[in-house]
C-alpha cells in the first residue's frame, strides 16, 4: 500500500501470461477495431440527437434497477442454493440456470405468457388493478431482470460455496440467527463475489435486446434502450450504429471504472 517500489512480484508465469494476453487481445481487439472504424465526426451529431440521450438514460436506469431487483431477489436465492439443505437443490439450481439458455426473444414470449394481457398473472393484474405491464418501462426492467438475474445467482452461489462457513458458526455462538449472520457476516465476507455478480448482471442487462424488444416493445422515451437504438440504427446506417455502440461502451466503461474503484478501495483495506 505504500509508495515505495515492491520487488516482490516474481512476474506472471508464462503458461498463465500467454493465455491471459491472448484472452485480452481477443476481447479487446474487436473493440479497438470498432474505435478505429468509428466516424468520430458523426459523434457530436449523434450525441446531440434527442433520442440518444434519452435511450442512454433509460438504459442506465433500467439496467441499474434490474440489477437492484436481481440483488434483492437473487442473493437470497443464491444463499438458499449454497447453504440450505432443502431437497431438490440440484434441480432448482439447474432450473435457475436455464433461462440463460433461452433465446431472449423466446424469453420475451414467455414473459408475455405470464405477464401479458392474456398471461397467467397479467390477465388477473389487468382485471383487478387495471395494470398492464407490457410496453412500459417496468416491462423493460422485468425483461432485463429475467435475462440477467441468473448470472448474479450463479456467481454469488459460487462465491458462497468458496467462503469459509466456520465464520457463520462463530456468529451463531454469538447469538446471531441465520438472518443476522447472513447480513452481518456472510454478506460482507462474500462482497467481492457479489460485486462480480452484480457487474455481470448489470452489464448483461445493459446489453439486453431480444427479450426487451419482445416484451416491452420499442418506444422512444419509455422502452427504447440503447441496444434497441443501436439495432435500429444498424438497419439504416451501420456507421451511426457503431457510434452509438461506442457511446454505450464508453459510458459503461466509465461506470465500471468508477464502481470498481470504490469496491477495490474497500477490498484493499482487508488483508
Amino acid at each position: 500500500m505504500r509508495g515505495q517500489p515492491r520487488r516482490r512480484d516474481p512476474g506472471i508465469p508464462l503458461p498463465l501470461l500467454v493465455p491471459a494476453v491472448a484472452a485480452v487481445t481477443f476481447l479487446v481487439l474487436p473493440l479497438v477495431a470498432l474505435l478505429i472504424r468509428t466516424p468520430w465526426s458523426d459523434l457530436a451529431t449523434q450525441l446531440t440527437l434527442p433520442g440518444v440521450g434519452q435511450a442512454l438514460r433509460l438504459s442506465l436506469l433500467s439496467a441499474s434497477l434490474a440489477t437492484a431487483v436481481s440483488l434483492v431477489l437473487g442473493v437470497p436465492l443464491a444463499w438458499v442454493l449454497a447453504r440450505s439443505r432443502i431437497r431438490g437443490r440440484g434441480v432448482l439450481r439447474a432450473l435457475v440456470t436455464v433461462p440463460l439458455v433461452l433465446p431472449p426473444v423466446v424469453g420475451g414470449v414467455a414473459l408475455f405468457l405470464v405477464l401479458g394481457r392474456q398471461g397467467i398473472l397479467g390477465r388477473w393484474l389487468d382485471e383487478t388493478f387495471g395494470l398492464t405491464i407490457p410496453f412500459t418501462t417496468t416491462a423493460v426492467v422485468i425483461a432485463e431482470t429475467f435475462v440477467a438475474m441468473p448470472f448474479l445467482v450463479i456467481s454469488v452461489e459460487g462465491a458462497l460455496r468458496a467462503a469459509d462457513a466456520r465464520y457463520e458458526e462463530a456468529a451463531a455462538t454469538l447469538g446471531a440467527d441465520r438472518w443476522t449472520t447472513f447480513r452481518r457476516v456472510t454478506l460482507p465476507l462474500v462482497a467481492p463475489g457479489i460485486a462480480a455478480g452484480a457487474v455481470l448482471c448489470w452489464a448483461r442487462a445493459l446489453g439486453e435486446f431480444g427479450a426487451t424488444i419482445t416484451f416491452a416493445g420499442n418506444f422512444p422515451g419509455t422502452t427504447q434502450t440503447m441496444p434497441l437504438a443501436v439495432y435500429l440504427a444498424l438497419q439504416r446506417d451501420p456507421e451511426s450504429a457503431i457510434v452509438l455502440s461506442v457511446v454505450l461502451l464508453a459510458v459503461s466503461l466509465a461506470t465500471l471504472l468508477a464502481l470498481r474503484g470504490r469496491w477495490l478501495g474497500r477490498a484493499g483495506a482487508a488483508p
Partner: protein
Amino acid sequence: GSDDGGDTATSSSGSATEDGGLSGTLTVFAAASLTDVFTDLGDQLEADNPGLDVQFNFAGSSALATQITQGAPADVFASANTSQMTVVTDAGLADGDPEVFASNVLEIAVPEGNPADVTGLADFGREELTLAVCAPEVPCGAAAEDVFAAAGITAVPDTQEEDVRAALTKVELGEVDAALVYATDVTAAGDSVEGIEFPEADDAVNTYPVCVLTDAPNAAAAQAFVDLVLSDEGQAALADAGFRTA
C-alpha cells in the same frame, strides 16, 4: 456476366457442366421473410440439377448486407427492401442492376376474432387501443409513416417494432389489438391472425430486389436461381405466399 468471377473459387465451386446442368454449391443470402418460398425454389433447382447444392443464409436484410460488404462468399442476394440492396450496389458488389422480383404492401393484422373491432387505418389514432407499428428506421415503419401521412392520420402506437415478425408475434399472442404489417406476414401467420386490407396501402409499396454478386463463386448457378425466381413458376410461388409479383 461472370467473366470477372473466374477466379479459383469458381472452378472449385463448379459451374455449368457440358450438358447444361449446374454443379457445385450455390449460396443464396436471402431475407428471412423469404424462408419458405426460397427453400422450395432451391429444392426445385437442386432437383433440376443433380450436381448442385443450394445453401441458404436467411437473416435480416441488414445483417446480410453487412456480411456481403465484409466479403461473404455469396452468389445471390435477395433483400427485403431497396435500402439494404443499395448498400451492396454502392459497394460495387452487385453484378449488374438488381431486379425487383416481388413487392409487398401493408395490411392491418388483428388477433383472431378481432376483439377490438378494428376496421381500418383510422383505428391507429385510437388512444385506448394497444397498437404496434414498425420503427421508422426499418422499411415497414417507413411505409407506415407514408400511409399515415397519405391518410392524414396521427397514429398513437404503443410500440415501434424492430421488424414485422416482432409486431406479428404480439398480435398472435393477443397482446396488441392491431399491428401494421405486411400482407405476406398475415398470410404466413395462418389462422391466429386476421388481416384487414386498406386502400392507402398502395401509397407505400415495398419492393424486394435480387441480384447476382460480383464475386459470386458460382455465377452460373446464381444466374439460374435469379432466373428461376423471375420465371412464372417462381412468381407463382411468391404469389402463393402473399407477395405481389413484379
